[in-house]
């Protein structure tokens, strides 16, 4: 049950994600973006970072990397595919998820703990959670504002929304100005998920929160799917 952790030249969360996956019992292996065959893996994670420097739109170059073929094949086969932060941007650019990620409201990088509410448990990232459960997880991004035409959101499943400590969704707690407060989004099938906050950074209470662990456990539990 091994997970591929994709490394573009400018990815920078690859080792964090690999360690966090191993901490919840998965086998995880770094895979260079020139590799196109991921058939030996049960799932794939695209970690955060700046895939090719993000001097163009984030993910605009990454979608043409050879590894995209392997990612698409896993997605097609119904296996779990997770894009975190920059990985979310790449999945949108590649058309595996609807919409795009644009500059934060306020045009500044945001690095802080936020709260997200589970709004669907029908995704590989949230299946071990409860509807309405509130998780405290770090948001660390500059282009983290989810943008899409209104029909676009409906073509996917909103897995998580930014909210306050009690689970109330409002504009104040939608720090980056995402459409409909979207923090995490899946395809209809629920096997391809993009999530802007970093679950791996909340996978150990010594780091301020262990709330991300249940998400990674969900993902690892889904490795046997399809």
């Amino acid at each position: 049950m091994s997970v591929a952790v994709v490394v573009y030249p400018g990815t920078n969360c690859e080792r964090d994600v690999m360690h966090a996956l191993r901490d919840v019992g998965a086998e995880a292996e770094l895979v260079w973006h020139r590799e196109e065959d991921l058939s030996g893996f049960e799932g794939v994670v695209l970690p955060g970072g700046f895939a090719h420097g993000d001097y163009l739109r984030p993910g605009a170059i990454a979608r043409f990397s050879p590894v995209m073929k392997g990612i698409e094949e896993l997605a097609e086969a119904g296996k779990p595919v997770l894009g975190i932060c920059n990985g979310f941007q790449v999945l949108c650019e590649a058309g595996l998820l609807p919409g795009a990620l644009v500059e934060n409201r306020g045009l500044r990088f945001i690095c802080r703990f936020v709260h997200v509410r589970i709004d669907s448990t029908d995704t590989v990232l949230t299946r071990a959670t409860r509807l309405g459960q509130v998780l405290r997880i770090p948001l660390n991004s500059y282009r983290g504002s989810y943008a899409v035409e209104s029909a676009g959101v409906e073509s996917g499943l909103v897995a998580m929304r930014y909210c306050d400590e009690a689970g109330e969704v409002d504009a104040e707690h939608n720090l980056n100005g995402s459409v409909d407060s979207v923090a995490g989004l899946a395809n209809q099938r629920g096997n391809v998920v993009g999530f802007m906050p970093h679950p791996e950074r909340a996978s150990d209470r010594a780091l301020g929160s262990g709330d991300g662990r249940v998400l990674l456990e969900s993902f690892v539990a889904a490795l046997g799917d399809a």
Partner: protein
Amino acid sequence: MPELHHELGMTDLEYTAVIDTLNREPTEAELMMYSLMWSEHCSYKSSLPHLRDLPSDGPQVVVGPGGGAGVVDLGGGWLAALRIESHNHPSFVEPYQGAATGVGGILRDVLSMGARPIALWNQIRFGELSDPRVRYLFDGVVSGIAGYGNAVGVPTLGGEVAFEPCFEANPLVNVMCLGILRSDDLVPSGSLDNGDVAVLLGAPTGRDGIGGASILASASFSEEDVSKRPAVQVGDPFAAKKLIETCLELASRRLLVGLQDLGAAGIACAASETAAGAGSGMDLALDAMPRREDRMSPAELLVSESQERMLAVVAIADLPAALEVARRWEIEASPVGTMTAGGTLRVFDGDSIAAEVPAESLADGAPVASRPAAKPGYIDEVWAAAAEPQAPLDVGGALLGLLDQPALASKAWVYEQYDHMLGMGTVVGPGHDGALLRLRGTQKGLAVSTDGNSRRCLLDPRRGTSRLVFEAALNVAVTGAKPIGLVDNLNFGDPEQPGVMWQFVEAVAGLSDACRSLEIPIVGGNVSFYNSSDSGDIMPTPVIAMLGLADPMPETPPRLDAATDGMGLWLIAGGGDVPDFAASAYAKLMDGELVGRPLPADPVLGKGVIDVALQLAGGGHAAVVHDISEGGLALALTEICMMSGVGAKVDIRDWRILFGEAPHRVLVASDRSNLADLVDLGDAVRVTPIGRFGGDVIHFGDAAPIAVVEAAAVWRNAIPRRMAGRSR
């Protein structure tokens, strides 16, 4: 070429020394190299004689000052590499790129030891935020640090932000980096064999940053100097990330016999230092350097400060393997040099020789500049006047005034733009006394605190600097980490002014005294002179960056937000309560006068308080252990209350004790009733219960209470409200 050497910032004496070294007139390329390598920035010609006696030894020191970075042993086969640098002048000319490339440069210094950079700290100082240009500089510097650090994948765990009018036209941007490595991966230095190959790694070379070290960093500034913008380099964190991974793989596969950063003075510096360090020479082929621009002259290629480049030295047998590593990480690798016997750096431009100089003369041959030092006139005046600010109308009002000072306010506006969580090591992040990182796979924690105090160092550079060392040591101790080494960044004005030189010599003496008292070795440092503008020299601003080791790391390290209802409040200090208002934040707020002579550090008490803080933090006896510094006890307690979201009642009425800034004092929040019995206090230290946490207001004696939420609103909003409307 008498005119050219002046244009390049060289004196006639230095020019004559070049001719004496070569026994002939230098070529243009040679003169360019000497002008940079002998600049103040590269050669330390004014400061070196004063730095030689600084204590830099200790059983833990693996590499001391003079290496690419200082290296200390953490035990268990782990080493830490640390270094601090300034990028003051470039950041005034172009704040975003100036700060960004400062980050890039310090990362490569740490990388040159074979260490993976794991965290950054920035010490940034500006004029007052009421000035729109200051807001532009502040915003640009913070964005530049964020833009580069966040993308390159190294977390920024904090640092310092301060504001004084003297920094209006000369901001200070200091950057410190910490790296870790296995002891086997330390890149060797010294012996190189003839025939070893120098490989230029990373970005191609362009015309950016030419003369940065001599033109920008080694001369005073005036307002027109924005025209020097072409001398500022442009950063590319994406290229840097690839360079880091390449170099680390080369180091871990033992493919390196040497590794050097290309920073100030470009490949001229890297090649001459590599050769001189090994007692060798080098043949350098300019034709082999990949370049970004056409028709670059030999001089331009030699001293370009294009970013994201390293010079690796590999044995010829390992060259194919090394080139393959670079190819896989998608960066350029070009064999440009060969190590030779003798000690000559020969630079080939095609078949002709563009330069042929003794490598050692470039790297270490700068004539020492003997700068006279004399006590400036202001010193006796300020010492003669006592710092006796007026009493506050009410304690609460004075406290809110302090909380609204940008230097004392919450820095969340700054550090929330920095990724401080990357790497999954941040146990105590920015906003606390010291940051604490865990070292994965071990029980160890690494703590860092960086500290400066321009106002106190102006009033007494020796006492001011000495107190900084004690404060920085205390700030790592409160996380449970024992101080094991430091690097310093000495930011001063024009060294050709005897008064500035006196400040420098005094500060170095204070640094030396404190390090000897605490037995903490100095493993590296940087000197930045010529921080002056049309309005004069900056206040002397030494910055201390202290590294501490917690082994094992406490299970629950103290943090400022951990006080809860019912906990006791304790003061750890010496016996006598002597308020110190010289250079205090309270005096600045109340009457703006900067007079008096600050109290000196007390080595016995200072050491004792650090030791008690370590016992409390390491033993898990306290939820909060907080150093009392600027703003005094009142501000320190309010910080705990605001971050913890709890009120407090403290039995101190005397405003002098509340706002004074005597050294070596710590506040503790703990649920233990017998704190004094849990630690060995030694002879000098007292632990006094002074109050209790609870409720949602803060009571200072019988003064009118202050609501925690009201205080917090002022404190959190002080910087954002001044920066409102600046959106990038």
